[in-house]
């Protein structure tokens, strides 16, 4: 607009945004940004150590500690692996899910959190349909809160288990990670980036270890401003071109439950972004294929790719238990000058 250009543009000194008080508890894991690179390295090392530890010894680490799983959304992998991980360390777990609790009667997140705390929960694992809910819960309870996925925002333990899977394939000899560990590695994240908490956590985590993240998808599901989320993030809308540059291809599900009236032509989408055996062979025959699940066979990827030799999808699931053991150990030992 002409009149905009004719106005002299100045910039003014204004009050800075306040410094975040979060996380209140050193054991909390609300965002991947809560972790330093050293912290990530420690968690990865502890995941391996805990995985290899004698189950009877491991059982004592959090013996009889109380962990609540508070789930406002359905989940298979995340919920089960958090539960198995907590139990593997000897903790008692209690599951509260929104559809079979007083949440249905209108109890607020704050009150639910305070109730769990009064019941003796020492840490709360929260899956919530609204972005930011874990911050609210942590502020209310001041207990370690583990973000197991909040709305469209973050899913930090997923990014950690994705990282572990990537390292197992591309850096099998590495035992400690640092800012250069993934230098030269390009990870393409494909599909419904807009609604994906997995994409956000990965794009904020992987570049800090040296990886380049390429985001790929149609404009509707991948707005241009996504590339401004942090350093090391670029957009490549041509899936084939992105694959040719990638050592890792991470496929995402279209989140029908979050489309909010958005019209999407699925046939057109599949033509542009479905990962098929042919595409993989032509453009990225050596790339590792990841998917956070649940997968929709025949939509974002074909059954052949999901079950094929390049797929590490089930390995990701397995890694979830190891990573979550390390995260829960950190949650409940951090206050005593714990390991992370």
């Amino acid at each position, binding site marked *: 607009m002409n009149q905009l250009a004719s106005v002299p543009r100045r910039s003014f000194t204004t009050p800075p945004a306040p410094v975040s008080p979060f996380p209140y508890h050193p054991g909390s894991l609300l965002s991947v940004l809560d972790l330093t690179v050293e912290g990530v390295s420690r968690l990865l090392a502890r995941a391996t150590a805990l995985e290899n530890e004698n189950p009877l010894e491991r059982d004592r680490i959090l013996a009889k500690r109380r962990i609540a799983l508070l789930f406002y959304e359905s989940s298979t992998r995340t919920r089960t692996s958090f539960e198995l991980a907590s139990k593997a360390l000897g903790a008692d777990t209690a599951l509260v899910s929104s559809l079979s609790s007083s949440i249905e009667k209108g109890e607020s997140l*704050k009150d639910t959190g305070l109730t769990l705390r009064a019941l003796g929960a020492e840490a709360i694992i929260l899956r919530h349909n609204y*972005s930011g809910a874990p911050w609210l819960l942590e502020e209310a309870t001041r207990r370690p809160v583990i973000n197991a996925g909040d709305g469209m925002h973050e899913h930090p333990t997923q990014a950690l288990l994705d990282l572990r899977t990537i390292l197992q394939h591309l850096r099998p000899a590495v035992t400690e990670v640092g800012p250069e560990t993934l230098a030269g590695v390009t990870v393409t994240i494909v599909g419904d980036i807009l609604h994906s908490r997995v994409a956000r956590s990965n794009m904020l985590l992987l570049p800090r270890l040296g990886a380049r993240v390429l985001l790929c998808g149609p404009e509707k599901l991948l707005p241009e401003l996504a590339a401004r989320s942090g350093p090391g993030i670029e957009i490549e809308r041509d899936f084939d071109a992105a694959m040719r540059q990638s050592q890792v291809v991470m496929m995402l599900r279209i989140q029908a439950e979050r489309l909010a009236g958005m019209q999407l032509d699925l046939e057109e989408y599949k033509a542009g972004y479905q990962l098929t055996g042919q595409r993989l062979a032509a453009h990225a025959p050596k790339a590792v294929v990841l998917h956070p699940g649940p997968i929709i066979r025949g939509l974002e990827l074909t059954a052949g790719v999901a079950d094929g030799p390049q797929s590490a999808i089930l390995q990701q699931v397995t890694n979830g238990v190891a990573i979550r053991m390390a995260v829960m150990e950190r949650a409940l030992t951090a206050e005593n000058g714990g390991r992370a």
Partner: protein
Amino acid sequence: MTALAICGGRLIDPTAGIDEPKDILINDGRVAEITAAGKLKRTNGTEMLDATGLVVAPGLIDMHVHLREPGQGYKETIATGTAAAAAGGYTSVAAMPNTTPVNDSPEITRWMQQPERGASVRVFPIAAATRGSKGDAITDYASLKSAGAVAVSDDGRPILKDSTMHEALAAAARVGLTLIQHAEDTRLTQGASMNLGPVSFKLGLRGMPAEAESSLVERDIRMVAEMRDAHPHLHVAHISTAAALAAVRQARRNGLRVTCEVAPHHFLLTEEHVGLYNTHAKMNPPLRSAADRDALIEGILDGVVDAIATDHAPHAQHEKEIEFDRAPCGIIGLETALGLSLRWLHQEWKLPLGRVLSLLSAQPAALLGLKGRGTLAVGSFADVVVFDVKQKWTYRAAESRSKAKNTPFDGWPMLGKVCWTISEGRIAYAAAPKS
């Protein structure tokens, strides 16, 4: 009513072009006499306020507040909201109609002004522009005006339909009322809870694009231009984007009667202040980008912005202590507007004191057609604020006179402490004496 004298203060009355030491005598709720400082004759029974070293100015006028009555007294009442207004230096507030029920009738308009409401300062209702603020049938502007409404608006619920907006502008022009539009094309903001931009993407929140505001402002201005002969007055509430402000600027150059207000939070804060889902930074229109904020400051300094208005929007604590997406929009603002305006507009960005005060009183009085207010000329209402322009203080939300405490400015440094607020000759607020 006893007479009241305010002596020795620096009288700043931008409309009258006065900025010098004066004594003021108030009688029967009106300004009776203004003399050079020290020249006022003392008479028995006259209460005297010593304003030496203080600024004496027309009481502030907030043309955009939510007092929540009728119907939402748990958030705020007319009594508590106006008590907060008085503490903030305000002597008049214009109350938006999004009450329960919506103020779309002369009965509610009158009810809000009854003495039983316990108002500390004058309340001027803004009535709904359409029945139930549903955006369809317009209300009866003539009878609302005679009941005391000073403007019409469906604040919070923009008038989207072209035909309704046209009809509302024409009807408002016929009776000489201002039509205030909350400019938001809600078709572009479904499910959104903050400004659309890199911050909303990163936080995983759906965003409201700047175009949702600017496109509606542009549509409204086109309509005002088409109806030029009827002289409608369109006032854009809480303008928040550079693009919408540019449209207002252009409309004014074209000689149209289009005005706008800016809220302190929009000229001070940006989307970055949402931080990690701070619901006290959730409002509508949302906190925008730094470029938008800069354009608003520029607009205030160069005069295209007509008024500072708070959009005082009280909510109960439990309503804000929920998930960001579910929390209601808005913050309180009556006790912080003067302190923030003086600290930033005046001290930091060098807007002359008279201009700051004009944006806070004379100009909103003119926009709403409040006769005898926004000035202290002899004969006008004795609506006065007396404040120490040099005193720094820290705002504590817990000490607010409002029922609500939802503000992002808790603990912020302020400049300019209100000593007395006088509403129609009566002391509505007096600061605790310095210990």
